[in-house]
């Protein structure tokens, strides 16, 4: 097909950044798919955007900020409701080694 726009190495690096473990088949498929998509996306380079400001937001935001008031009440059981693993009131995860 068209030239490769992303290497296997890059796919693995991105998967590491995104914390998704990929099987060999998935890696291969992603290499192909992403390469095709990036190839399509290259058409943006046809446009000269040197002097154009980016648009990060549209619409009409009405709430720049809020007052410094405590409005929440403790509901620890609700917050822990969906915890995959817990110990008392704490979320339990594999030991973090620094």
């Amino acid at each position, binding site marked *: 097909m068209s030239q490769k726009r*992303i290497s296997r190495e890059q796919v693995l690096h991105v998967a590491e950044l995104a914390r998704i473990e990929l099987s060999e088949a998935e890696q291969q498929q992603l290499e192909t798919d992403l390469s095709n998509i990036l190839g399509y996306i290259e058409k943006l380079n046809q446009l000269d955007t040197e002097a*154009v400001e980016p648009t990060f937001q549209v*619409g009409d935001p009405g*709430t720049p900020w809020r007052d410094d008031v405590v409005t929440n009440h403790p509901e620890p059981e609700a917050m822990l409701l969906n915890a995959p693993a817990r110990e008392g009131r704490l979320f339990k995860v594999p030991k973090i080694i620094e």
Partner: protein
Amino acid sequence: MTSDLHKLTIVEAQARLSRRELTARELTRACLDRIAAVDSRVNAFLTVSEDAALAQADAADARINAGGAPALCGIPLGIKDIFCTRGLRTTCASRILENFIPTFDATVIERLREAGTVFLGKTNMDEFAMGSSTENSAFGPTRNPFDLERVPGGSSGGSGAAVAADECIAALGTDTGGSIRLPAAFCGIVGIKPTYSRVSRYGVIAYASSLDQVGPFTKSVRDAAIMMQALAGIDPRDATSSARPVPDYLRALTGEVKNLRIGVPREYFVEGMQPEVERAIRGALASYRELGAETVEISLPHTEYAIAAYYLIATAEASANLARYDGMRYGLRVEADDHIGLYNRSRDAGFGAEVKRRIMLGTFALSAGYYDAYYLKAQKVRTLIRRDFERAFERCDLIATPTTPATAFRIGERTADPLQMYLSDIFTISVNLAGLPGLAMPCGYDDRGMPVGLQLIGPPFGEETILRAGEAFERAFTPRRPAL
């Protein structure tokens, strides 16, 4: 005798409820029965909450009997499974949230609940709203009620199909690149994506934060105006929501389109479009002219770049929005020896292929060395697309286009090539990039009887204009119902 109550529109149901010819319980019961009868074939619903719905209906009846009940009191709705509903499983059609139970309601859900609407259940969607056909659901695709071998469109396919099949009187969806308008077009019903910031996003599971908007699916444009009235308005919990006052949308439905200037962009009539689609759209434009409107040829020159820009911006934002699905505090967890392994395995097991694809693309677009060439570039192109519309609206009051280049395709037809699937959004996506309001409504059928959707695009906060134009067209056009 089977009751046809489930076939009612909101307007019809409201009238009968207020005249006590009908109870909310009867109406809800009719919808639940309809779901039981057809949903095994349509697969629009992931969760049906029968008992809770009937309880809501009873409460609605009490309010209606007491007098002064709000407009949507007692109306049964389908809710896309992207809205957090307190105490009711919310999956986003993903394995990673398969058993997730929110502890709060999305703002729009809270408001609808307070208004006495009935929630029949949660509808199917493409996983994390990423898709155009609802084939990316982890729980099986939804089928188009007009032809069960065809897709209902996506990502809000469940809500679209549910309304088309009369499983509910109306439904809620979200639209990030066309996810309300496309299913509305494919399923022959009405769908609106409001102006970005018109409706609160709080409690709506985020896909692409600067593009997502909440909107209704209805059987008529008038119904859509009623839903918009209930949904629109500022939310202090959503800093991006607009403080602009909400107009009276029903008042806008005057039926008057004389001298309305309708822009017709030449870039939206492309080679390779399905001929019946073009015919139906041109037919609609002719109808508008008969009603006294004026059609004006306009150009939106950067249309062809919209998909490329969208798939960088949306995926970049999504890659960050989906980082929280990590098996630590909720959701699917696959155990591992260390936390990195836990992340890797849980996310691998929990996310489907399309979601992984978009997370990878978005992560790449933001990564060191690529940010300027990809993400930043796309946001600049976004500015050019916005400017296209600004210039166009100097010469017209609204813009009319096909919603899609073709009618509903067959299930499985486009799943092999992601890029093919992405191109389904070609007419809807610019509207999200520019943050404009867009309405899709049926305007014809192809030779197989599949619906063709007309899209009306308004200027920012121009919902009144597109509702007015849509409702005027509707007065002269009777949509078909599926034979289901």
